[in-house]
């Protein structure tokens, strides 16, 4: 029997007569129209929901869990944020805290977080495709949707889409943002943040307009070749220049250098005391002037000792011209008007001792093998071209080369960069976080002709920077403005004669005033309400720290009496907190009885001596400042108000609010103002 015959018989059976034709078509229709419901019946999400129902049956709170469970597709819809999230269709127990002991997805409840699920949905923080209802489409890259779930180590980046303020719960994001500013990423890349402001670099790369006064062609060559060989803590990246390129750049930088204001000043010299005495005196002067508050030096064990606000000085003697150093110590702003270094009023002897000490900090091996041929015009011209091509002037001021414009790609939306625009290296995971991390770790691996240099960063720092950059998403740009938590961008600078003096002393390099300045030293915005005039004058004459355990301390500026008067007049009148009428505290309430009750509260009920020293003979607490002369230092109203709410007057303080009654705060104030240094006054 042939195949054709068989087919003919089957066809005749189904469509031979009209009723048979009708029946066949009906059956076919029924089968076709049941395909979709059948597919749905066996869909992944139903499988998970059935598993969930079976799982909760065996739990002690089964009745409650079953009552709260609804079968079917679940969806969180937030039109203004373009959120259509069906994740909770399979992750059905996101809000069931009683299932916290589960160790496997998809039924774990969401861990505690600062927002509710229905407020932002899921993909705002976790990325992925919210509308999908299969595991593959929701979590992984597909042709239609290429941004997969964000790996959990980068989740903090999502907070950064709205939050410009520093959150305690996002240490990685915060570190990443600090690094973006500190490593000068924003000198070359424009990075617009969700609040519309640009990331502002906080590093201050030195001006090179007068660099020939400061150092030699050989040093510039060695530095440009490998900055970390000179100072391990340097944030200057490595451009992997060839010897020829580095020599050309050094030739050009020396050739373009002009005379600074400092070089026109006569240099007054005092001969340093001879020999060992000078070394000894220089070392101890470096210590007593608290240079290490900002500068670090590597000790014999190879550890950096000191602050990171200013350049490391481990090998400074191999770098600087001795005369430049002496002039710099006398007037840093005469060489670089934008430097953060204050103008200390060092006398000639101090300059001689300090420069002797600093010049002894050298490494003879550093330049031992650097022998450059004489500079010529061809080399200088090549160097100028390199300086322009590599965008050196995006960071440094150089004569004859203007800062480049839009030098590097804008990173404002890097967190949403389409993957088809990304050139991956063969073999690397093809995801955006891996691309960003790889690019930061070793940019030239993505192409030898790329100009981006290599930064010396640890893996953790790379992860933090990646987190900060992943926050720069399309979504961040389109967030409703009322959701964006911004920070202040205050640009306060003090005015008048005292203001000029404070600029000269660079007070705001360390102190913040009215929202502008450094965070190394106490905020001075309310200093006028806090301190007594005599104490302030004494302190500026001889700044002894209130926290002897700290490495960073206020240096001595050697101010004149007139300067101190000008500064204290200004601070006491301008830096006042509001609502400081002394009515809040009647002087008569601060009597001896109150002081006795206050002492009892201090030592027994509140155990203040755990953190503060009121009496050097018995107390040892070292967290807060010593209070042994607080009666000389602070005003009674300030003490009272600080005790009532420490954070209101001193934002960010470690001191907890002790929740005192008015009476207790008065008694403690009465006790504290009895703590004075010496009957004759002054500080110890």
């Amino acid at each position, binding site marked *: 029997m042939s195949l054709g015959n068989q087919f003919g018989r089957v066809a005749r059976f189904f469509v031979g007569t009209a009723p048979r034709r009708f029946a066949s078509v009906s059956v076919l229709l029924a089968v076709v129209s049941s395909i979709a419901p059948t597919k749905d019946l066996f869909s992944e999400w139903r499988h998970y929901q059935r598993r969930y129902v079976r799982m909760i049956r065996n739990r002690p709170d089964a009745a409650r869990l079953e009552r709260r469970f609804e079968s079917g597709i679940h969806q969180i819809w937030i039109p203004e944020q373009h959120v259509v999230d069906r994740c909770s269709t399979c992750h059905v127990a996101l809000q069931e805290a009683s299932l916290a002991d589960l160790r496997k997805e998809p039924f774990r409840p969401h861990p*505690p977080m600062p927002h509710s699920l229905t407020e932002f949905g899921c993909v705002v923080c976790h990325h992925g495709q919210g509308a999908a209802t299969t595991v593959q489409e929701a979590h992984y890259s597909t042709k239609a949707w290429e941004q997969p779930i964000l*790996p959990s*180590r980068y989740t903090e980046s999502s907070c950064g889409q709205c939050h410009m303020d520093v959150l305690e719960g996002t240490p990685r994001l915060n570190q990443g943002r600090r690094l973006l500013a500190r490593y000068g990423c924003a000198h070359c890349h424009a990075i617009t943040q969700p609040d519309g402001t640009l990331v502002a670099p906080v590093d201050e790369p030195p001006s090179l307009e007068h660099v020939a006064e400061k150092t030699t062609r050989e040093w510039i060559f060695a530095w440009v070749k490998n900055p970390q060989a000179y100072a391990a803590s340097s944030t200057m990246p490595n451009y992997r220049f060839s010897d020829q390129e580095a020599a050309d750049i050094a030739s050009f930088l020396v050739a373009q250098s002009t005379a600074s204001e400092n070089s026109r000043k006569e240099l007054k010299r005092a001969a340093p005391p001879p020999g060992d005495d000078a070394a000894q005196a220089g070392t101890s002067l470096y210590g007593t002037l608290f240079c290490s508050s900002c500068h670090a030096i590597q000790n014999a064990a190879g550890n950096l000792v000191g602050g990171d606000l200013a350049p490391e000085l481990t090998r400074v003697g191999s770098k600087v011209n001795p005369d430049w150093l002496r002039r710099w110590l006398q007037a840093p702003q005469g060489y670089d008007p934008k430097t953060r270094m204050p103008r200390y009023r060092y006398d000639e002897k101090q300059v001689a001792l300090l420069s002797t000490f600093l010049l002894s900090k050298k490494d003879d091996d550093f330049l031992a093998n650097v022998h450059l041929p004489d500079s010529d015009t061809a080399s200088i011209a090549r160097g100028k071209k390199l300086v322009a091509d590599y965008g050196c002037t995006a960071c440094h001021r150089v004569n004859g080369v203007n800062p480049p414009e839009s030098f590097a790609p804008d990173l404002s939306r890097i967190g949403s960069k389409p993957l088809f625009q990304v050139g991956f290296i063969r073999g690397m995971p093809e995801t955006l976080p891996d691309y960003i991390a790889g690019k930061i770790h070793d940019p030239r691996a993505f192409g030898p002709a790329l100009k981006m240099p290599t930064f010396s960063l640890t893996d953790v720092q790379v992860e933090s920077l990646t987190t900060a950059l992943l926050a720069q998403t399309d979504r961040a740009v389109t967030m409703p403005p009322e959701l964006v938590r911004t920070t202040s961008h205050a640009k306060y600078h003090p005015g008048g004669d005292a203001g000029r003096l404070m600029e000269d002393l660079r007070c705001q390099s360390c102190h913040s005033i009215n929202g502008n300045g450094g965070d190394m030293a106490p905020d001075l915005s309310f200093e006028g309400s806090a301190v007594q005039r005599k104490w302030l004058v004494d302190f500026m004459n001889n700044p002894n720290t209130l926290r002897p*355990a700290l490495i960073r301390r206020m240096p001595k500026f050697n101010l004149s009496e007139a300067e101190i008067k000008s500064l204290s007049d200004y601070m006491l009148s301008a830096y006042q907190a509001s609502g400081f009428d002394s009515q809040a505290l009647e002087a008569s309430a601060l009597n001896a009885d109150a002081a006795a009750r206050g002492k009892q509260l201090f030592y027994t*009920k*509140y155990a203040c001596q755990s953190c503060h020293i009121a009496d050097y003979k018995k107390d040892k607490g070292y967290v807060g400042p010593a209070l042994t002369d607080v009666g000389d230092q602070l005003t009674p109203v300030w003490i009272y108000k600080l005790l009532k709410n420490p954070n209101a007057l001193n934002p960010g303080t470690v001191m907890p*609010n002790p929740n005192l009654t008015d009476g207790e705060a008065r008694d403690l104030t009465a006790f504290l103002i009895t703590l004075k240094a010496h009957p004759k006054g002054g500080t110890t």
Partner: protein
Amino acid sequence: MKRVATYGLVLILILPGCTARRAAGPSPTPKAYGTQLVEVSGGKQIGGVGSKLSDPLVVQVNGADGSPVPGALVSFRCVGLTFNPSDALSDSSGQASVAVQLGGIPGSYQVLAATPKSGGGTVTVTSHEIALGYQEKLGKEVSEKYCTFCHDPESTPERVSNFDNLTPPSPHQFSDGNTLNPMSDADLIKIIADGGPALGKSPQTPAYRGTLTTAEIKAVVAYLRAVADPPYPASAGK
């Protein structure tokens, strides 16, 4: 005969597919065997969920005489953690070192390192690594700002410990599981919010009710549960 050949061909075509998938990480062949396994470093590290730990986990294989054994196979296993490599041969000093990436779920991860013995069987050593989620990270930040001055006896360049300046009873370290695990969450929250006297303890622990939010106080408790050693029961056994 023809049919057997066809089935054979199909089988030959299918098999490489199976083996290729299974052979993702071919484990190296041991060249030597030890009798003892000890942890050298890299245990009890703390990191954010899903992040790579900063230091590798290092274990050492020793022989019967206690001397290090090079070339022994060490396998690292833990549900949720990723090891690179997960099977390694010990180096010339008898040590095997692996990079560790934490899982996405916060809590304590028990790591099992194992090395085969020459006569069959294995010797093992356990270690644990700690992954912090949002809440535990918040708790860590809060406790490093307010608590570690007194609760951590170690000083750092940025923070001089106040531990030795206190009068007894001395504060407990947050990792002190033996003391803190038996305490209930409610008691820990109370002592943080209302100070030591709230539980009849020293007033040297101040009250943080007026300083920290309830969420922050709960976060501190979640953090000290996460770093507890021995691990806190609720987060143990993974």
